[in-house]
């Protein structure tokens, strides 16, 4: 019984080890394209709609968000074709808000945009059904049926929505915008449908702040879910019970 084992010389054993190592190396090489393939297959095919199996969300770390930095706002404006003016009648999808503790003088800066609520007040009040929530939790305005009544602007506790007062030209083909409709952050839905990140998140990461994490709140393995599990994050106006998709850390 033990004879075959005895026949294994150290040299043969060494060979087997090298073979195993080579095998492992080959397996590694196979895994790398496999990972790539997995990444590609995750992108939803265009004929498949948004699914309620996902819910897109953002986690914003206000301790990393730079005061005076407007990179996310600029990226949003460039992606969505906003002109970047901040007058009372100019559309703004993201606002940089500075908050100061008056007793201590501690200043924090954070981006404030549509919070993509699970129970959005803007959808509740819309008289035409133009204000709507997609299956994956992104809150949008259907401009085809928006009559510009601005009821949603009044209902939104975050001042996230804007009305377009002036006629627009040369819009981004992917982001139709026009006079007479209410609009707000779409979480860059055109990019999300291509399996990309919103422009603000991409810009914040590129700038090196890494204050924003975008991802699927329903996927326990996603970076945002992992981060939410490990840090203390809050909703703004949590008392309203809207279960926002955008959460803040450090406020």
């Amino acid at each position: 019984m033990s004879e075959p084992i005895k026949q294994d010389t150290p040299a043969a054993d060494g060979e087997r080890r090298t073979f195993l190592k080579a095998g492992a190396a080959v397996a590694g090489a196979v895994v790398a394209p496999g990972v790539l393939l997995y990444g590609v297959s995750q992108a939803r095919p265009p004929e498949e709609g948004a699914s309620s199996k996902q819910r897109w969300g953002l986690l914003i770390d206000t301790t990393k968000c730079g005061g005076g930095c407007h990179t996310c706002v600029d990226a949003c404006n460039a992606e969505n074709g906003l002109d970047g003016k901040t007058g009372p009648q100019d559309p703004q999808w993201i606002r940089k808000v500075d908050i100061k503790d008056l007793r201590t003088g501690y200043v924090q800066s954070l981006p404030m945009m549509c919070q993509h609520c699970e129970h959005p007040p803007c959808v509740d009040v819309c008289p035409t059904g133009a204000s709507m929530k997609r299956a994956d939790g992104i809150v949008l305005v259907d401009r085809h049926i928006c009559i510009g009544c601005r009821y949603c602007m009044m209902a939104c506790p975050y001042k996230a929505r804007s009305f377009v007062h002036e006629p627009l030209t040369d819009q981004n083909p992917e982001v139709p915008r026009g006079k007479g409709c209410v609009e707000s952050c779409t979480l860059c839905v055109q990019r999300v449908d291509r399996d990309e990140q919103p422009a603000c998140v991409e810009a914040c990461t590129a700038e090196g702040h890494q204050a924003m994490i975008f991802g699927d709140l329903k996927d326990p393995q996603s970076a945002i879910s992992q981060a939410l599990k490990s840090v203390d994050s809050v909703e703004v106006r949590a008392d309203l019970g809207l279960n926002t998709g955008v959460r803040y850390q450090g406020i």
Partner: protein
Amino acid sequence: MARLANWLRLAVLAGAAALMAAPSLEAVAGADLPKLERGKAEKCVEDTQFMRRNHMDLLKHHRDETLRQGIRTTKHSLKKCVECHASEKTGSVAASKDDFCASCHSYAAVKLDCWDCHATKPGKKPVQQAGQPATSPLMASTPMEGKQ
């Protein structure tokens, strides 16, 4: 006799059909039809006659699917229409009255409001180019705004 009558009836019907068809064809050929700038489009995703009658329904159906459900197929998307049909002169489907959308719609006197929001040119155009008309001639609301 009955058979002859049947033959006669058939002949008369055929003649009538020919008469009815012929003037309509002539009328179409002789009419002052809109001259289209087709752009680089070679072959449409649907039959031309079908598209003439049904493009608005296809677009309306597609827009709701895309916006509300996130279905982003390209076959009946307005963006793809613009990419193929943008005029080679103006680069747009509705900048001059010969452009693809504008020519037929001004002929049929049907006002379009697609271009109030949607881009009439393919590709990204974040800044308005000089020398191009600011708005489509079909946007009837445009002159009014100047007066307000």
